[in-house]
């Protein structure tokens, strides 16, 4: 007798847990021959709001970790992903990738995580400045995490789009809620398992599956979201997002997929605030001590 395979239940990822959508809704994902691959969670506004609560709760801890520590955790994600390469390749292939493309996509994703792992304790030096003010003050500016970032990741790619949208955001100490590709959602849930086993604190990355057409307005209008990163091309959604974003002066950044897959410290900078600090200096002038 042949053994019956165990199929995976694809759930969403909120606050380090894998709940089903509170709405109980799903959409069927089918393969090339119309066979059912999974019943995928059709996340609701309430799921999104729960995820934001988790992300906000995790923000203080994540943003105050040292860059070095965040770097090690990002590197750990890369290690875990590398170790599960075959699983991701298989998953990409049942979602329509060729073996070569699937293998490349996973390798690129791992490499991108390693790239950003290295940035965690370096972008600060790149984007900081000591400002030579004309009064007797010491004055410097440093980048600081913006807060909670909502992300609508690329529709076209199941894994690389997701990883390239998350990595620069969490490298910079932000926490996020990400909407995965609707048509290729499988890798996002499996990637959540990778995150879950990589010492990434619960709530730092939260992953939802579902429809951008339903959720984008909530991603844009939620009052406890500081920035929104949009990685799709739908002009109507972009306009709608920008309109809703004004409710709390949310920062909105739009990207095409190719913008982000190559990685750049300037993508980290996007979701950073610049903070300037002043302090008086008791005396400014030529020093009395000479040679």
């Amino acid at each position: 007798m042949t053994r019956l395979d165990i199929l995976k239940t694809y759930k969403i990822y909120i606050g380090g847990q894998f709940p089903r959508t509170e709405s109980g809704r799903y959409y069927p994902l089918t393969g090339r021959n119309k066979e059912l691959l999974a019943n995928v969670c059709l996340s609701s506004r309430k799921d999104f709001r729960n995820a934001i609560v988790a992300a906000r709760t995790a923000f203080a801890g994540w943003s105050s970790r040292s860059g070095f520590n965040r770097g090690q955790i990002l590197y750990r994600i890369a290690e875990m992903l590398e170790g599960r390469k075959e699983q991701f390749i298989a998953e990409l292939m049942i979602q329509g990738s060729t073996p070569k493309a699937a293998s490349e996509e996973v390798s690129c994703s791992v490499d991108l995580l390693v790239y950003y792992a290295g940035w965690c304790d370096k972008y600060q030096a790149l984007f900081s400045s000591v400002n030579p003010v004309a009064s007797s003050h010491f004055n410097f500016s440093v980048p600081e995490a913006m807060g909670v970032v909502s992300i609508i990741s690329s529709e076209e790619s199941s894994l690389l789009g997701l990883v390239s949208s998350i990595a620069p955001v969490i490298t910079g100490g932000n926490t996020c809620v990400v909407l995965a590709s609707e048509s290729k959602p499988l890798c996002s849930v499996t990637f959540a398992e990778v995150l879950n086993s990589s010492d990434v604190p619960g709530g730092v990355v939260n992953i939802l599956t579902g429809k951008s057409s339903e959720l984008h307005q909530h991603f844009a209008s939620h009052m406890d979201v500081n920035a929104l990163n949009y990685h799709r091309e739908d002009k109507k959604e972009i306009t709608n997002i920008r309109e809703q974003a004004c409710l709390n002066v949310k920062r909105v950044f739009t990207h095409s997929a190719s913008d982000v897959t190559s990685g750049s410290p300037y993508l980290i900078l996007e979701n950073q605030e610049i903070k300037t600090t002043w302090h008086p200096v008791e005396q400014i002038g030529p020093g009395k001590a000479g040679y």
Partner: protein
Amino acid sequence: MKKNKTPKPLNFSTGWDYAPAPESTDHIKLEKQYDLFIGGKFVKPSGGKYFDTINPATEKKLASIAIAETKDVDKAVQAARKAYDTVWGKMPGAERSKYIFRIARMIQERAREFSVIESMDGGKPIRESRDIDIPLAANHFFYYAGWADKLNYAFPNRKPSSLGVAAQIIPWNFPLLMAAWKIAPALATGNTVVLKPAETTPLTALKLAELIRDSGLPDGVVNIITGAGNTGAAMVGHTGVDKIAFTGSTDVGKLIQKSIAGTNKKLTLELGGKAANIIFEDAPLDQAVEGIINGIFFNQGHVCCAGSRLFIQENVADIVIRKLKQRMETLIIGDPLDKNTDIGAINSKEQLQTILKYIQIGKNEGADIYQSSCSMPAKGFFCKPTLFLNTSQSHRIVQEEIFGPVLTIQTFRTIEEVIEKANNIPYGLSAGVWTDKGSKIFNLTSRLRAGVVWANTYNKFDPTSPFGGYKESGFGREGGLHGLMPYLKF
């Protein structure tokens, strides 16, 4: 046990008054009427309409100012576009740089005239316009002039280029300084400009237009047009504009953000604030009191980064409040042109009404009011320096930006508590911390969610120092290297 005796209040009525020390106004040149500065010339507004700009300290008219209508805005944007396409966008950075340096120098040469006009039109004390607004404006041009040919060094591994035409809308609290903050980085990065000063304070911007005309800057690189909200809306909505920079209220900022949602216009917003100014028990209290005074009464409190929420550690609250009240008694309210004046005129009747409305709200909310017993001028728009004691986080006067000389006071016990309260507000522009302990300063400055944090000082500005907000205080930075970014694409 010996009871703590409250010291006798200081007596300042010695019978000796300050003799008036008015700055002379006979050397300044003001026209009766100002037109729109478009394409290097002053031109009549298409609708032929003008409004009055008045001196808020005397309520007397200073000049008639043109109202730019949609047609005029279009003309200005076209002039800016032409200048961008034919001259400014192509000019080598080193040449652009020299033009901007020249503007800086000419402002320095005419600094006193600008200061006097600034105080007449806006009501701020001459000491402030003379020592802060105008020199900083000149310095801002001087600083950004030097960047024009060095942009490739500012952003490693990237090739920056200019955006095109920038529409810039500025407020009435620092009229010339805000114009400098907007124009200087835009020009240094190779953009051309259409700028609108605030309705109540157009004069120094128009004097700047004269100066720019005389400086030989190519026609149309800077266009300065006047009017009210409609003019601003036409600028924001114009399809020929690539960049919008706005400083003003959060409400208007949100409207602008919404209205350009369907476009690719780049946006910088510098909006409202409600800064926490935090005094710890170990702070140098006399200096802290000076910092509180400067934080809230500087420029009549018409400062988006004003330290309008004071937090005093509980065990020093009594002494700080006593010192604060005594210091308030010494403040001189009056003629902005008098060099003895500490607090000048409220910028407009409308703003005075807003402030008075908030003072009434504070009373209705049950907070305890204290006002200095200073004498007040009979004419003009003035407001007494005001404290509200026994306020709490939920009070409207604590949550909302008043933009006047009104300070709310709360006390706290622990660092955790004060950080929570300081951050618990939609704004995030600035904050102040007063303590003698270095490690406490850095704890606070890194946990306060605000774009500018002053430690043991307050309300300091410099062209090299980036300024701008977190959260609903807007986005983008002005000043410093970071201030170049909003005017470049990569």
